[in-house]
């Protein structure tokens, strides 16, 4: 066998192995369409049809209902957030989301500024991202070393599903996803009294805060280069960020060009929440509360921030989303 042919056979063997490994790695990934990380459904949206992208942690995906915003204003939005998602991961989410969409505004829920460097859901938050530079950079910059094998080689984490996954699950993975009827929102339909307002405890980590700030600066630069308005916001909650930390964040945000900071946890905003009906827990709104907040946010976007509807969304799809939300009732 000639040296060239030999090299070709070797390369073919490597390619076959990689195709198998990453193909089955994709196939065995558990289906996921709530609690953030809705990448597959996000990618099935029409290109350049989303006006606003919202990112952050559960405070983003539990509180913002894109269908309500659309119904009020015609603005198409999508929530691309993950559980306890850290700022660096959100940064790469937004970069990746802008590869298929051309939004005019990005909203980033900023409580993640005070999270630990690594929260509990790194694997889920990065593991569903599409392969590419943004995923790789998120992996190497924002994942703990123990998660690297699984993030770089998904079979490492999921090959046990060869033994456990039902054929229907595999089939569901292989079929093309239809758009998410919640557009990234996670529906919580139980109600609980949130209790009195308290300050949330965060581990003081100045170094991590500075690191997060550098990602915010990078995001501002990224947005400026694409003519996107960047809004850093704090979601309404009964577990407030301690005053000194919040002031520091406001101050730092003010010093970065192109950042608009909005604190929706400030009592000056009145969303008309009913403690007996609108909260899922002290941190998150349920669907009733999220409808109120999203309705307010829709008006705020169009009236105060001047965001306008691009008009490229699929009206039938968005109407079906609005209808679906309208059918939701607490406790059912």
């Amino acid at each position, binding site marked *: 066998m000639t040296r060239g042919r*030999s090299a070709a056979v070797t390369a073919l*063997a490597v390619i076959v192995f990689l195709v198998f490994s990453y193909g089955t790695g994709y196939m065995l990934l558990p289906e996921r369409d709530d609690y953030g990380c809705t990448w597959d459904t996000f990618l099935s949206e029409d290109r350049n049809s989303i006006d606003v992208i919202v990112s952050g942690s559960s405070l983003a995906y539990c509180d913002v209902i894109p269908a309500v915003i659309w119904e009020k204003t015609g603005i198409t939005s999508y929530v691309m957030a993950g559980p306890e998602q850290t700022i660096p991961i959100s940064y790469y989410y937004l970069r990746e989301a802008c590869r298929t969409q051309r939004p005019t505004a990005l909203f980033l829920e900023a409580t993640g500024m005070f999270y630990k460097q690594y929260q509990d859901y790194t694997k889920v938050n990065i593991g569903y991202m599409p392969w590419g530079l943004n995923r790789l950079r998120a992996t190497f910059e924002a994942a703990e070393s123990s998660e690297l094998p699984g993030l770089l080689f998904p079979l490492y*984490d999921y090959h046990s599903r060869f033994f*456990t996954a039902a054929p229907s699950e595999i089939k569901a993975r292989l079929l093309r996803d239809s758009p998410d009827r919640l557009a990234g929102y996670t529906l919580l339909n139980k109600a609980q009294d949130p209790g009195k307002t308290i300050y949330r405890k965060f581990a003081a980590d100045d170094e991590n805060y500075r690191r997060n700030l550098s990602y915010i600066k990078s995001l501002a630069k990224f947005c400026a280069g694409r003519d996107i308005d960047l809004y850093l916001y704090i979601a309404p909650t009964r577990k407030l960020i301690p005053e000194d930390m919040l002031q520091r964040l406001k101050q730092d945000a003010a010093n970065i060009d192109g950042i608009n900071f909005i604190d929706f946890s400030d009592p000056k905003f009145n969303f008309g929440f009913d403690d007996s009906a609108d909260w899922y827990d002290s941190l998150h709104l349920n669907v009733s509360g999220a409808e109120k907040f999203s309705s307010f946010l829709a008006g705020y976007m169009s009236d105060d921030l001047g965001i306008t509807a691009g008009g490229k969304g699929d009206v039938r799809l968005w109407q079906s989303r609005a209808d679906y939300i309208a059918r939701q009732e607490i406790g059912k």
Partner: protein
Amino acid sequence: MSFTSFRYLIFIAVFCVFYFLLPGKTQKFYLLFASYAFYMYAGPAFGALILAGTVVSYFCARFFEDGVLGRKRLWIAIGAVYTIGVLFVFKYLDFFCGTAMRVMGRSYAHQLALVLPVGISFFTFAVAGYLFDVESGKIKAERNFINFAVFVSFFPTIMAGPIGYARNFLPQLSAPKKYDAGRVQRGILRFTWGAAKKLVVADTLAIIVNTVYGDVSGFSNGLVLLAAAAYSLQIYFDFSAYTDMAVGTAEVLGFSVMENFRSPYLVTSVKEFWKKWHISLTSWLREYIYFPLGGSRRGKARTYFNVLVVFAVSGLWHGAAFTFIIWGLLNGVYQVAGELTKGARSRLRAFLRIPEDSRLLWLWRCAVTFALVTVAWVFFRAGSVSQAVLIIERMLSVFVSGFGVMDFASLGLMKRQAVVLLLSLIPFVTEDIYIARGKQRPELEKRELGYWAAVVMLAVLIVSFGNYGEGFNPQDFVYFKF
């Protein structure tokens, strides 16, 4: 650093890139450096231990040959006492002191509890074998210290063998190793074969074994019996997998090391089993203990005694515990009993008119040998003599009270996992049958497509069904603790 870890793959890949580019002398230094780095990864202080052992035995052998101080044998004695002494201190001192104190009715409150350096039993035996070979004139004392140090610390074999013989290894250092594509490919295939054997078969069997041995009373007689048989298979696939990976790595580097197994379960007697199981250790014990004791030349009674001594030492070599000593002695007793009943069994066969070459007889003998070895392995695996006795009682109860409820689901394996285990056994058992028939492994590397198809299939088997990553509990190689 385990052979099945991702780190090892990176280590060996990076190592090989430079290894074949370096000129002869530098190549040896590089190999030595890598071997120490590999070994010290398990514990930096262990490097000093192996270096001291290398220095002492190197000079003792040279002083013996040069007749320093006019006391030739004294140097071999010093070297051997030092080498075996180090092994004794780290591995056996606590055991012997504790046992002696218990015999005297006292408590042993001053346990040293030294951390056992990985592979200590292997490299100390390799060094001791070298000293004995020099003393008996089988080889000349090595004059090149680097060569000798490479022999002692050679990283593919330092953790769990095969136990190196200087007379086989040192001549291989005479010429620099050039890149040989066929050899490298052969090594990669052997390594991958071993990795599949370990991660897919041995570690899956370990799930059954660990589940049952962890709570013997919670399982029926039949399942305890099944777990005992599973351990016989686990330890074979585990240790032979390690050997495959060691031999494969050595092959890539241009070295030939001793084979450790030749289808040991496809044999018709325990004596034959020991000719095909852990061959490097068995050869060592035969050459340096059995023969010096007189072997089979001093009458039957002495021969039987020698066999028992050798197997007691073999048991002790494996670990400082009575379970290992009983395991070794039991294997010795099997062989003595085999010899003593040879005539009677022969007469019984003649009476029953069973021809010696009957296939059924062969199968029966294989089954009996496997059963005997399995009973012995119970002592090897059990945490204590009492646990071993309990397990054997439960195994034998099958004949009295039956198998009991065979709830396979309670063994810790998922259904598909059990099916994959059974299917995965096919290629490895086929290999054993192939080798048992005296055939050589096929030279797949000569057929490029066939070779890569085999490597890719093995790699696919490993990444799909191997015990690694999330949701699995990968096991250390069993022989790492020796």
